[in-house]
């Protein structure tokens, strides 16, 4: 009964369409849509299965990729730890080098180094005294009882 109703509906739908356009035009349209390259449907299952097989291989890589985050995190941790230990060792070595170097430098060399690096300002004491006395004379204000 239900199938009968569907068939009646379909006939009425088709009648509406056939009233608009001819049955030939509708069939011709569908025939056009059904055009495919030769052997397309014979080769299609093989093409799909090949893609599935190649995807399976890709999936293996994806499985590895799932662990990639952990691998990256482990690598970063390892690099950081090694780097920390290594840099600490360098720092210790550097300190040792400084200590040894100071101990090994002869006193004469240290003296020479201090002398060559010390900032000496050569002061011409006589000219400085003269300059100061000139200033004194210029700024001199005599007392009232100073008659000479």
């Amino acid at each position, binding site marked *: 009964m239900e199938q009968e109703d*569907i068939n009646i*509906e*379909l006939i009425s*739908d*088709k009648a*509406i*369409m056939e009233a*608009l*356009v*001819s049955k*030939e*035009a*509708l069939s*011709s*349209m*569908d025939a*056009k*849509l*059904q*055009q*495919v*390259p030769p052997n*397309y*449907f014979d080769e*299609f*299952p093989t*093409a*799909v*299965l090949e*893609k*599935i097989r190649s*995807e399976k291989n890709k999936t293996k890589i994806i499985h590895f990729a799932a662990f990639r985050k952990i691998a990256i995190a482990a690598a970063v941790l390892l690099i950081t730890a090694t780097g920390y230990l290594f840099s600490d060792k360098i720092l210790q070595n550097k300190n040792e080098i400084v200590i040894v170097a100071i101990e090994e430098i002869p006193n004469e060399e240290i003296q020479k180094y201090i002398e060559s690096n010390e900032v000496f300002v050569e002061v011409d004491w006589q000219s400085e005294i003269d300059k100061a006395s000139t200033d004194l004379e210029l700024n001199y204000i005599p007392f009232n009882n100073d008659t000479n």
Partner: protein
Amino acid sequence: MQGDQELIIQFQQSENKEAPFTALLKKYQKRVYYQIKRMGIDHADADDIAQQLWIKVWHKLDSFKMESEFGTWVFRIAYNETLNFIQKNKRLNAKIIGNNNDWESDLAASDQPKTSQITILLERAVLQLPEKQRIVFMLRYFEAYSYEKIGEIMETTVGGAKANFHQAVKKIESFIKSV
């Protein structure tokens, strides 16, 4: 010839999945391909969509619970895949469908018999339809599917499928009359 259910069980339980899968694919490949093509997709794209959907079927078939018919389930995947493709390529699609001048001049210059001219006109009219109306029209008219089945494929109600079909017919009618 084995039934769908038997093939699906074989796929789900056996180590050799390729044999039952190929049997299902061979049984439904033409109808699925035509369904895609009827939505206004050319061969190259229909081939791509069909391949992608069958790969999807391969991955999902293990969890298929046979609550609906296998065919309906595959057609639903085909419908969704095609709709996704159309939406992704909406601009390109609109350019192809919206280029009305070409087909009008083709029609005017055509020496073809009247049936062929009407076919061109009908194709254009169908391509002008919104995707949902287009697929309902095609499934109803060319596949002679019930509205229940169309509703199941499109995940819509029977009323919705009927409304879409009648809207489609009205639009085709007004398109043909306007030319």
